[in-house]
């Protein structure tokens, strides 16, 4: 009889580390096609529309960039936090507060003009996101409160804040009763960078954020600290890296980046604050961070893959009538396969015969 045994690798396998995300995507396509067919959908069609059409249809490339930008920006922040073993899962809330802060600036400067309005909105968004992220950081470092639960609960609170603000104090006076703010003035809108498309300045910003984060994480003391505290907390303490400082940094950076994404989205695609502003980018960016192996450059890959599924999900909705929620199922499957594949990074599978086992 043949048996398999897991053997711990001396060092995590680099090939597996970077190979498993690709394998996870491929497995999701194969298993997804089979599963969706089994439960009565057009499985092959769904996989084709969700994973292939966004590439073959060049008209959809601009959508890919626009969807990937916020995912990459938030995903980069989360990858830094998760590296340090700080579980900020409230990025959606920090994204919302960032969007609200930018909206506040846009509405306050509504009668004004000037180049400084948009940068100020972006700064306000980053500050808002960082401040909202500071609450779980404060509670965790001061009182030891679990940051997973607090950051998540605050997300629900932030969504109610939007509902309140657009219903009452920030409501568009000319909006015929719709719960939304007025459309931002011209100087508060994010410029397009490719005429005739929907590609806005947020797309290059996302790439710059990822490159800067990659440089900082791999070349600076800050990056070293985040990685060491996450990988070997005891050694880090011995080496003089404070755990509390790491938690603070992780939340401030990931909160500020989520807030940046919120400011860019509200000034770009949305152009005003609406109740539908929370689009789950903050939650989906968790998958992006993991698909990117918690590495800022990998997050660009992860963001693009997830953007493909979003754009493809919309295509599948119109072309074969598949519900939008199928996208979430595919995204979760990708994460499941990726997490399963993690085993192969740390272990190798050895085939052993019972005799060899007995001798050993």
């Amino acid at each position, binding site marked *: 009889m043949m048996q398999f045994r897991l053997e711990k690798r001396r060092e995590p396998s680099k090939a597996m580390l970077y190979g498993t995300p690709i394998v996870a995507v491929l497995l999701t396509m194969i298993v997804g096609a089979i599963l969706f067919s089994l439960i009565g959908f057009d499985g092959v069609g769904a996989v084709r529309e969700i994973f292939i059409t966004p590439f073959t249809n060049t008209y959809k490339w601009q959508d890919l960039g626009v969807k990937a930008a916020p995912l990459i920006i938030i995903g980069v922040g989360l990858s830094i936090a998760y590296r340090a073993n700080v*579980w900020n*899962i409230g990025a959606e809330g920090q994204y919302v507060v960032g969007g609200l802060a930018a909206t506040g600036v846009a509405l306050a400067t509504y009668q004004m003009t000037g180049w400084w309005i948009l940068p100020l909105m972006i700064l306000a968004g980053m500050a808002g996101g960082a401040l909202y992220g500071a609450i779980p950081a404060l*509670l965790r470092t001061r*009182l*030891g*409160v*679990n940051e*997973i*639960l*607090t950051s*998540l*609960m*605050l997300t*629900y*609170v932030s969504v*109610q*804040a939007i*509902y*309140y603000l657009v*219903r*009452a104090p920030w409501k568009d006076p000319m909006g015929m009763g719709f719960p939304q703010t007025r459309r931002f003035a011209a100087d508060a809108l994010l410029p397009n960078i490719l005429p005739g498309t929907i590609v806005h300045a947020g797309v290059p910003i996302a790439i710059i954020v990822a490159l800067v984060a990659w440089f900082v994480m791999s070349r600076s003391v800050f990056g070293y600290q985040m990685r060491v505290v996450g990988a070997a907390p005891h050694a880090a303490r011995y080496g003089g890296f404070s755990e509390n400082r790491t938690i603070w940094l992780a939340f401030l950076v990931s909160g500020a980046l989520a807030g940046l994404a919120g400011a860019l989205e509200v000034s770009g695609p949305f152009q005003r604050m609406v109740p539908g502003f929370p689009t789950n980018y903050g*939650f*989906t960016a*968790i*998958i992006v961070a*993991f698909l990117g192996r918690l590495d800022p450059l990998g997050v660009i890959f992860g963001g693009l893959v997830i953007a493909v599924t979003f754009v493809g999900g919309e295509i599948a909705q119109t072309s074969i009538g598949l*519900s*939008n*929620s*199928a*996208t*979430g*199922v*595919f*995204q*979760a*499957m990708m*994460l*499941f396969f990726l*997490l*399963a594949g*993690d*085993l192969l990074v740390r272990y190798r599978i050895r085939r052993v015969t019972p005799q060899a086992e007995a001798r050993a």
Partner: protein
Amino acid sequence: MSTDLLIAIIVTVVGASTPILIAALGELVVEKSGVLNLGVEGMMLIGAITAFLVTFFTGNHYLAILVAAAAGVASSLIFGFLTLSLSANQTATGLALTIFGTGFSALAGQGYSARPVTLLGPLFPAELASHPIWRVLFGYSALVYFAFALVIGVWWFLKRSRAGLILRAVGENDLSAHSIGYSVIGVRYMAVMFGGAMAGIAGACFPLLLTPQWAERMTGGRGWIAVALVVFASWKPFRLLAGAYLFGLVMTMELYAKASGGPLSAIPAELWAAMPYLATVVVLVLISIRRDASTNAPACLGKPFLPAN
């Protein structure tokens, strides 16, 4: 306050508390075995859509609850396989399960969102609950009594039974339990499956006990509140009962405030809607100020079992 209003409030509080209590009791057992499953919200959504669909097509509420429990178990096995057999990161896998449950339930419920079903009726004959006072005791559906029985059952299991002792040993010191011959992985699988079944039943409470229909994300973060409550209750079933009812009260305070017409009714609806989540944060803060809270956590909570082989 009139008696009728008081009774109405009690009945609403009981309804709101029941799913949180059932889900939290399941998660308590899971955590006592040393496993942290953050997928409760996702498993609840899968339970909710399953219960809705079975009720919609068969009209049989009890069958719906059973199938919802089975669906909860099935989804918990994804988590169990990844974290126990493949020792994947529990936090990430739990989050993935919640994302999966949210998407899967929305997909399965596509096209059913405006279709009504009937609520599960009261367990006892109507004559027994005819008087308002008796209604408070005998006017509920079986799910409510199940939740109460579950509190006692879980308490008895953990404190008094041999199997419960083994489960706690596995959660406190997995290596020792392993060395004296208990199957750590086996015990944790059983606990995770129990947690899945309870999350499935808790999800079934939404279409069968609260609002007789399906709506995307209809559990609205209650699964996360259940996870928070386990910490709040410092892993003790009777404290969980108190905590769940406290939350049920917070969630229904809006009704009371509106009915009273006093200064509370000036509070915007959005703040009331945010209240359970704010209350969770406040409660977590209060509990961490008290000293025994974290010391009562199972020692192996969230850590993968890696015997030296």
